[in-house]
């Protein structure tokens, strides 16, 4: 019976192995809840992916609905979009470095350093995106002008909103790091935020190729 109580759930029958980076043997504490939480977060990501997928589909069907207003050629600034892409891709790399530091490094300095760089890149992305929107507004590209612009402004800012929320979460996690140190719950938070961060990177690649490049094609 004691063998039975030792493995209370089916989850722990097999070694924890969720998709993405696993923290491994050095991080035993909280492993059971981590497996469940990270799996749950992946399921949430799938649900969120549907949200973006439907908005992509809406955008594609609305491409022609410019109603005589400005279209992609008049409004899209590829240099700005490319710069944002670079910011986000580099931030994904730096978050990757943070995850490795979390897994392999004993001291927190490397981890916090990478996280801070990631946060700056994320905030830079949001700021530049807002500047881009501002320029579009000045050129008459406001959502109330046409169906096309409405579709653009329901998809791209939603991604920006996600990045902003991820930044807030990152700040909150840095706070948890300061207050509670690197305990099991903070680690769980960091692992999940990493998944969200890379997910938003992938969505942005979709936006860059489908919204910007596809819009201009």
């Amino acid at each position, binding site marked *: *019976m*004691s063998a*039975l*109580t030792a*493995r*209370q*759930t*089916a*989850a722990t*029958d097999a070694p924890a192995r969720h998709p993405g980076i696993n923290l491994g043997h050095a991080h035993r504490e909280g492993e059971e809840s981590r*497996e*469940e*939480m990270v*799996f*749950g977060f992946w*399921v*949430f990501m*799938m*649900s*969120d992916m*549907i*949200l973006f997928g*439907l*908005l992509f589909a*809406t955008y594609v*069907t*609305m491409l*022609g*609905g*410019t*109603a005589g*207003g400005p279209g992609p050629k008049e409004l899209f600034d590829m240099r700005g979009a490319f710069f944002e892409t670079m910011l986000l891709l580099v931030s994904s790399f730096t978050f990757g470095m943070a995850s490795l530091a979390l897994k392999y490094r004993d001291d927190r300095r490397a981890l916090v350093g990478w996280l801070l760089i990631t946060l700056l890149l994320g905030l830079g992305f949001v700021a530049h995106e807002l500047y881009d929107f501002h320029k579009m507004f000045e050129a008459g590209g406001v*959502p*109330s*002008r*046409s*169906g*096309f*612009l*409405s*579709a653009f*402004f*329901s998809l791209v800012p939603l991604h920006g909103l996600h990045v902003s929320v991820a930044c*807030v979460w990152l700040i*909150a*996690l840095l*706070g*948890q790091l300061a*207050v*509670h140190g690197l*305990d099991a*719950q903070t680690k769980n*938070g960091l692992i999940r935020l990493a998944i969200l961060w890379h997910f938003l990177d992938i969505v942005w690649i979709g936006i860059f190729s489908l919204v910007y490049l596809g819009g201009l094609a």
Partner: protein
Amino acid sequence: MNDSTHWLLGRLDASALPFWDALQHPTTKSVVNAVIASGAASLVIIGALVVVFGLTWLRRWGWLWREWLTSPDHKKIGIMFIALALVMLARAVIEAVFMRLQQALGLDGGFLTADHFGQLFTTHGTIMVFFMAMPFLTGIINYVMPLQIGTRDLSFPVMNQISLGLTAAGAALVMISLVLAPFSTGGWTGYPSFTERAANPGAGVDYWIWAVTLSTLSSTLSGINFAVTIYKRRAPGMRWMRLPLFTWTALCTAILMVFAMPPLTVATALLALDRYLDFHLFTADLGGNMMNYINLFWAFGHPEVYILILPAFGIFSEVFSTFAGKTLYGYTALVIATLAIAVLSFTVWLHHFFTMGQSAHINAIFGIATMLIGIPTGVKIYDWMLTLFRGRIRLSVPMIYASGFIMLFVLGGLTGIVLAVPSVDYQVHNTLFLVAHFHNMLIPGLLFGMLAGTNFWFPKAFGFRLEERWGRRAAYAWIVGFMLAFFPLYALGVLGMPRRTVAFFTPAYLPWTLTAMVGAVIILLAMTCLLVQLWVSVRDRHLNAVPIGDPWDGRSLEWAVSSPPPEYNFPVIPEIHGRDAFMLEKERGKAYQVPDEYPDIVLPANSAMGVIVAVTGTAIAFGLTWYQWWLVLLAAGITLAAVITRGFCRDTTRTLPGEEVRRTHLNWLAQVRATVPIDRSQEQSCANRGLPLPPVEGAIQ
């Protein structure tokens, strides 16, 4: 309104009161409508006051807070979901009776204004789908599924509280709209461009948007929670093909929730952008495309039908095998059929708008896909009938519902096949034939399933059986009332009567609308019987007590624990050796054993997150509806602060000492040994304390 109160109240003013219009323009009709609307509004207010004063009088606020509102226990959250569903059911049934009354008197006018009638069918549909059916099935899954798979709680107990909070907020909004009117008149589907600001500038559609949005968020979170729990928390040995069929249907419903709720969130959010920020996604001008809304809505709407029906299928599977005293026939086929229905549900959404302009080829493809769903459903019907075949059937209340279901549901399915033929659909589209069809699926399917489940699992949750006589009366009244209320609508549909009509001018409709009215009255009677049943059962709870916990000679794990179960469900997590896990234990004489040791149990600690989300969710939605921006910002700020603060919490669990668990369990086991077991002929008598005679190989009780 002057500027000084505008920032505070937004666009809310005296004209929102349900009797305002009648005061301004008193005609007979407007006064009658005002009396009805004000009566409903005062019922809401009186109900709320009675609850508040009652709790204060009985000094139960602390108890309510500690034992219920902040409890992370899946069983209590499940019960609260179901209680919410029953309250909303009562309101929506009363609305249905008013609609039937209007159409019974509707030749050349009737007594309701078109606007009032529009609000009635919109709230009726919205409530029945989002605030009756969804919380009801979510509540039953919440209660039963963790017990069936042998775990102590859902994977994310606090998220479960938040799900309840979001649904409660949506329901509260619909209730508030009775007092500060109006609600939307756009139907539960809310098609633009009717629901756009150009056609409908008032607060009604906004109420609808935010109530539905809250509900979709709640269901998405519930879906994630259920799916992860079933994937990760099964007891050792509970392999996939050993899961009780109800858990299988819960899993498929959860997966559908994860994937099918986002489309509706997108649809309502985009409609809100159109209405609030002057976007042109679904408008009739400037490049908007309302067909996008309709596709998005039904990309949710069709899987939603199966979200509603699959848990009921699961409940009926448990009921048939338990009350026939047999193992479920064709378990594997039933699992495959459930999965097939879940997959096919995403491939048929277009049949909701055959008439909206796509080519005949596309219609044909979706028509065929629709008919395909009949195959796995047919497999299920045959499996259930073969489960009953040569069983020792006890015609208990759940079985009455199940028998009514199996006959009426097949009939409804056949009219579905009729509607799936696009050329026929062109004839009866948007008529009462369609209304009859989907009520024919959802009342015998979903609602009978939920009521059967309530009668089936009530003794598990509360420790005493529901009274049988009033239960039978309610069940038969539901069956007869349903047939009288909805079969005439098939005829009316074929005669060409459009749905959602406030008045008609064809005398040939009258006999049918009058018959349907009689049916509605019988359904009202059925609701009364349900109330009386509850009252009588609570009164006689000591006579009907089943503390041992197995009143029906059950087959799955939830019957292996006491009634009501301890908050940790299982003193020791059981090891599973086969399908029908508890029946297997009973057959091997291994039920009710003393474990070797009682380890400490870690449980989630109480949390106020659910309550906070319920309150702030209501406030945000109310503020958005009436343009009270300060309220929106304040409530959103509180929500964000609460979520961040929660992240900093570390004392999120509490530990129950094994010694206490041992004492409770041994007490219960002593009670088991002292109880006289009964055979099935005494199931409905006071002798039933929840301990069945052990099954003997080949013996018939």
